[in-house]
């Protein structure tokens, strides 16, 4: 038995280890459970939910790019009602922490979704995806507007006592300003980063490779950007950070933790190796043993600048 303490705290939420699977890259848990033991992970974050089901964008939705991929899924999801009825029963049995991600097109919709889901005991925390267009106020992303992010945090905070995580967009000039407003409005943690806006063209047809024209870039290509954002938040705001972006193995995970993350999420790697989460937990444990780290939380923000 190893005596490394892998558990971490995010607000009032206790995770058995710092490795989570990211929203949009695990569906609702059932498919990936065929390939990996989700109970060995810190938790999973379900696909962004909206109040009503969304069918998502027309194809082509994804394309591979150098060391990454672009996606424009269009937040396809079953909606809150079907989620509660059909997905929660399975998720309950997984014996892993369940974090529910919410995406909405108005502040009222964020609040409404949270209220409905707050009654479900199986859900331990909420992660709010602010990288969505604000349909009521001009269609610009909430995630680009510090005031909007502040208001979402405040209004959602008012309707839930569960751990509240705001997932930040990297497509801003100072991400730490956003983390600051989340803290001020009562958010428990931030996750960083969501995907970076990108595009890709077919030079012969001169058409974008994905139908939506632009998509979100993920994978190893974004890791240095993500690390810099995590570090920026860590140096400027006292709030737990969940690091996300291009993590492929335990070394990448350790790098995020050292740069300021209390926990990490894995996205694109799940498509390639659905068992990566379990392997990364093992790798982190060995790393701690070998470097005489007794508690993985001691590693957080242990950078030597």
């Amino acid at each position: 038995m190893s005596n490394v303490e892998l558990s971490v705290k995010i607000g009032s939420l206790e995770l058995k280890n710092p490795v989570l699977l990211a929203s949009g890259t695990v569906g609702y848990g059932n498919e990936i459970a065929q390939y990996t033991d989700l109970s060995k992970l810190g938790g999973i974050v379900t696909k962004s939910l909206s109040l009503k089901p969304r069918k998502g964008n027309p194809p082509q939705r994804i394309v591979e790019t150098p060391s990454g991929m672009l996606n424009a899924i269009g937040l396809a999801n079953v909606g809150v009602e079907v989620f509660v009825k059909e997905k929660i029963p399975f998720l309950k049995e997984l014996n892993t922490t369940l974090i529910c991600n919410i995406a909405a097109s108005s502040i009222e919709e964020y609040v409404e979704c949270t209220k409905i889901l707050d009654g479900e005991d199986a859900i331990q925390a909420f992660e709010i995806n602010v990288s969505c267009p604000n349909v009521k106020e001009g269609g610009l992303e909430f995630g680009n507007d510090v005031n909007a992010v502040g208001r979402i945090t405040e209004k959602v905070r008012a309707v839930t006592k569960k751990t509240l995580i705001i997932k930040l967009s990297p497509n801003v000039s100072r991400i730490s300003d956003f983390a600051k407003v989340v803290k001020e409005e009562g958010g428990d943690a931030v996750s960083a980063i969501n995907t970076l806006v990108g595009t890709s063209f077919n030079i012969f047809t001169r058409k974008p490779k994905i139908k939506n024209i632009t998509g979100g870039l993920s994978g190893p290509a974004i890791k240095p950007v993500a690390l810099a954002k995590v570090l920026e938040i860590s140096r400027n705001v006292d709030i737990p950070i969940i690091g996300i972006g291009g993590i492929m193995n335990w070394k990448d995970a350790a790098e995020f933790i050292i740069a300021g993350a209390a926990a990490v999420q894995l996205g694109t790697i799940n498509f390639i190796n659905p068992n990566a989460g379990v392997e990364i937990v093992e790798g982190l444990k060995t790393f701690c043993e070998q470097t005489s780290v007794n508690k993985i939380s001691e590693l957080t923000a242990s950078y030597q600048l």
Partner: protein
Amino acid sequence: MYIEKSRFESIEHLEHNIHLIKVYSPSIARSAKPGQFCNIKVSDTDFPLLRRPFSICNVEGEHIFFMFDIHGEGTLLLATKKAGDELDILGPLGNGFDSNGDYQTAVIVAGGLGAAPFPFLTKRLPADKNIYSLVGGRSLHQVIKWGLKNIHVSTDDGSEGFKGTIVELFKTKIDELDGKKIRVFGCGPNPMLKALQELSIENNFDCQISVECAMACGFGICQGCPIENADGGGYSLVCKDGPVFDAKKVKL
């Protein structure tokens, strides 16, 4: 479904640019059904990042065959593998063909590399069914007959068999084939599948088509592979709900 570290056994070059590889992958081989596919990691590094999907071309005991042409970087790497190399394969994936039921003759319609899933179907077809294979290509070098039976060929340039598309060839055979007693199995490029879909709907054929599209995961977690439902009610996922669909149920 398995993530199986498989052993690369051999590579054979069939026609121009067409390769057939054999891998030792016992768990996947034992559970595979015709029409299913595997998602293959063609390198040990992050390049190419994503797995590449390939139809299960045939199964012999604990070995699987895949057939492919060199398309881009991923297939190029796959074609340079040597006997003994390890290949990380995820599968078997998808629904596969439904070959049971009330029909007499399986009509296989294969355009170019669309032939890939049919050797396995040919092998596993219930014993009471006949086979009639329509195989097409741009020219004779693109006509892939490996593992097929009772073959009728079309080429766009007339260099072998019927001059024209495979669906045009099918039209000329309709009288010969009794529409009530056939089930059509199609795979190939989208324009071909579209023509086949139209023909099947017009003639009320029972028709299953295997479609391709860009994929990331291959097992239902990324939502990257939608195909529009014919009833207008949103999308199905090619990797999980397909890749084989009833021709009446999807929009191409």
